[in-house]
């Protein structure tokens, strides 16, 4: 569905005093039909720039990109006719009501008036907004706006649905409603491409993903594969209290004392992450050494740990 080789995107032109900013610095990827493919990375990793190129709205700076087998440089309109795009920021028209947002958008695809209206009603039903059809967009909650944007992206029955940070800014309940709807779309055979900086979202939705950082792909695989390859099975989180005053960071100090108990130890500002196959055993051993963390938590490794391992940084800061 999507194939990229050495894909690059830069902004600004050399010699104009603006400097060149390289948002995407040579990535390879392959999205297959029917899968949910994710771009996981922090803000500024190049996810949205990549997404805009895949959406055939932003010209490719260098490298090769094929979307649905077509070249966006020459067949942009034909590609976009088969894509659904849910942008990071809602681009709903606040001056039109909920239903007109869908109807007018359907007309851009050349869908006739009657068919556009029927499709709008069908989609409002799908995203549970039928009772809001005549409401003003501004009166919708954040979650409802997102659902409307997703409904709009489905208006042309796309083969490929692009979702840029679909649940950013939503409360947990609204996120779960949305995930459920995206999951159902995938069941219906729609190929999904999702960017997110939430590891739980990536784990929930994506069959396969790339971890992006600073414009490059740091790793690629299924969530389970990535965790297996780049992290331990479990993580013991240890939180130590400050000894008081401006003393040295207790986490730095204790990191050395537990280093031999684990595969790897990461120091975060507020806790230690101890990577191991058996978290409970580590916690016991820590106590046995007379160390007294104020809080401990044993959990499975997540994509967050993978990201930390690959980049030395956390996803959301």
């Amino acid at each position, binding site marked *: 569905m999507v194939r990229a080789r050495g894909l690059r995107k830069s902004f600004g032109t050399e010699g104009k005093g603006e400097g060149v900013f390289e948002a995407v610095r040579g990535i390879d990827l392959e999205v297959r039909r029917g899968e949910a493919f994710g771009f996981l990375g922090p803000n500024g990793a190049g996810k949205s720039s990549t997404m805009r190129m895949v959406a055939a709205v932003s010209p490719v700076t260098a490298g090769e990109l094929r979307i649905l087998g077509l070249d966006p440089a020459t067949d942009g309109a034909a590609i976009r006719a088969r894509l659904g795009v849910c942008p990071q920021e809602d681009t709903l028209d606040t001056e039109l009501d909920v239903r007109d947002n869908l109807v*007018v958008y359907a007309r851009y695809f*050349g*869908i006739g008036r009657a068919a556009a209206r029927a499709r709008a009603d069908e989609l409002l039903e799908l995203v549970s907004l039928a009772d809001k059809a005549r409401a003003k967009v501004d009166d919708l909650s954040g979650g409802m706006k997102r659902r409307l944007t997703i409904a709009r992206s489905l208006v042309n029955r796309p083969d490929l649905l692009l979702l840029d940070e679909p649940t950013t800014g939503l409360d947990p309940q609204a996120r779960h409603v949305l995930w459920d709807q995206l999951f159902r779309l995938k069941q219906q055979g729609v190929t999904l491409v999702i960017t997110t900086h939430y590891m739980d979202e990536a784990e929930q939705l994506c069959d396969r993903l790339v971890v992006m950082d600073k414009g490059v792909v740091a790793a690629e695989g299924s969530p389970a594969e990535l965790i297996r390859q780049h992290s331990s099975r479990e993580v013991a989180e240890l939180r130590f209290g400050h000894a008081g005053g401006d003393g040295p960071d207790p986490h730095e100090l204790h990191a050395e004392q537990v280093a031999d108990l684990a595969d790897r130890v990461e120091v975060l500002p507020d806790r230690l992450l101890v990577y191991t196959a058996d978290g409970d055993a580590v916690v016991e051993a820590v106590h046995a050494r007379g160390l007294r963390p104020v809080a401990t938590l044993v959990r499975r490794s997540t994509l967050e740990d993978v990201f930390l391992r690959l980049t030395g940084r956390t996803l959301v800061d």
Partner: protein
Amino acid sequence: MATTDPSLQTGSLTGTLTAVRRLAPYFATVAARTWKGSVVSAFLSPIFYVLAMGVLLGGFIEVDPDRLEGAGTYLAFIVPGLVAGHAMQTAVADTSWPVFSNFKWNRVYDSMVATPITVRQVALGHLAYVTVRVTLVCAVFDLVVAPFDVYGAWWGPVAALGAQALTGLLFATWMYGFSCRIETDAAFGVVFRLVVFPLFLFSGAFFPVANLGAVGERIAQVTPLWHGVNLSRMLSLDRVDGPTALVNVTVLVLLSAAGLVWAVTGLERRMAR
């Protein structure tokens, strides 16, 4: 329903016309939302102008028609110029904040170009809408003042409407391109005060540009609005000087064509960010 029809191959005239037609429901919906205000102001503006300029101010002005470029009354003199100036102001207003907001604030353009419609087609579609709106506003103006015996022939206002529409297109394209190239909307205030308002005052709408003296007259005659005002007036009064009219039409058409390029490249640059 996913379409890959060849008429949407970008660059072709059919493709562009198809795209403009597909954008029409959007602009129709926008127009439908604001039609009451538009209609009221379309009818009230000419009435205010006629009252203030034609009746109240014009009452003081009694000159030989030869000094008023052939107009029998001051009202008949200023009406065609006012309408051309009104076309400029409507076009500039419609392509300032409404355009800026479409890529900066409500991002309506972003949603349009996510579909088979291209950036160029979006710019052309929006300009087509503005030109239609300007033409309707001017038609109402021409109609409202018709009972005041201001036209030299029945077809005068009809032909003048063409000149006024062309004037609207010209200013719409240039303002459109400008709106695409600025970073903050504060620049609009400067344009309105330092470009639009002086043009309106000194391009021959209110007095014959000959009154500006030889140098002033030459300067006024190179402003784009003067060509619109002059053409509109000659047609309206049925006092057409062929060679001058040809120059006026040529200038308006060439500047509009250049403006179209400026507008389209402006939006293309803006949307490529």
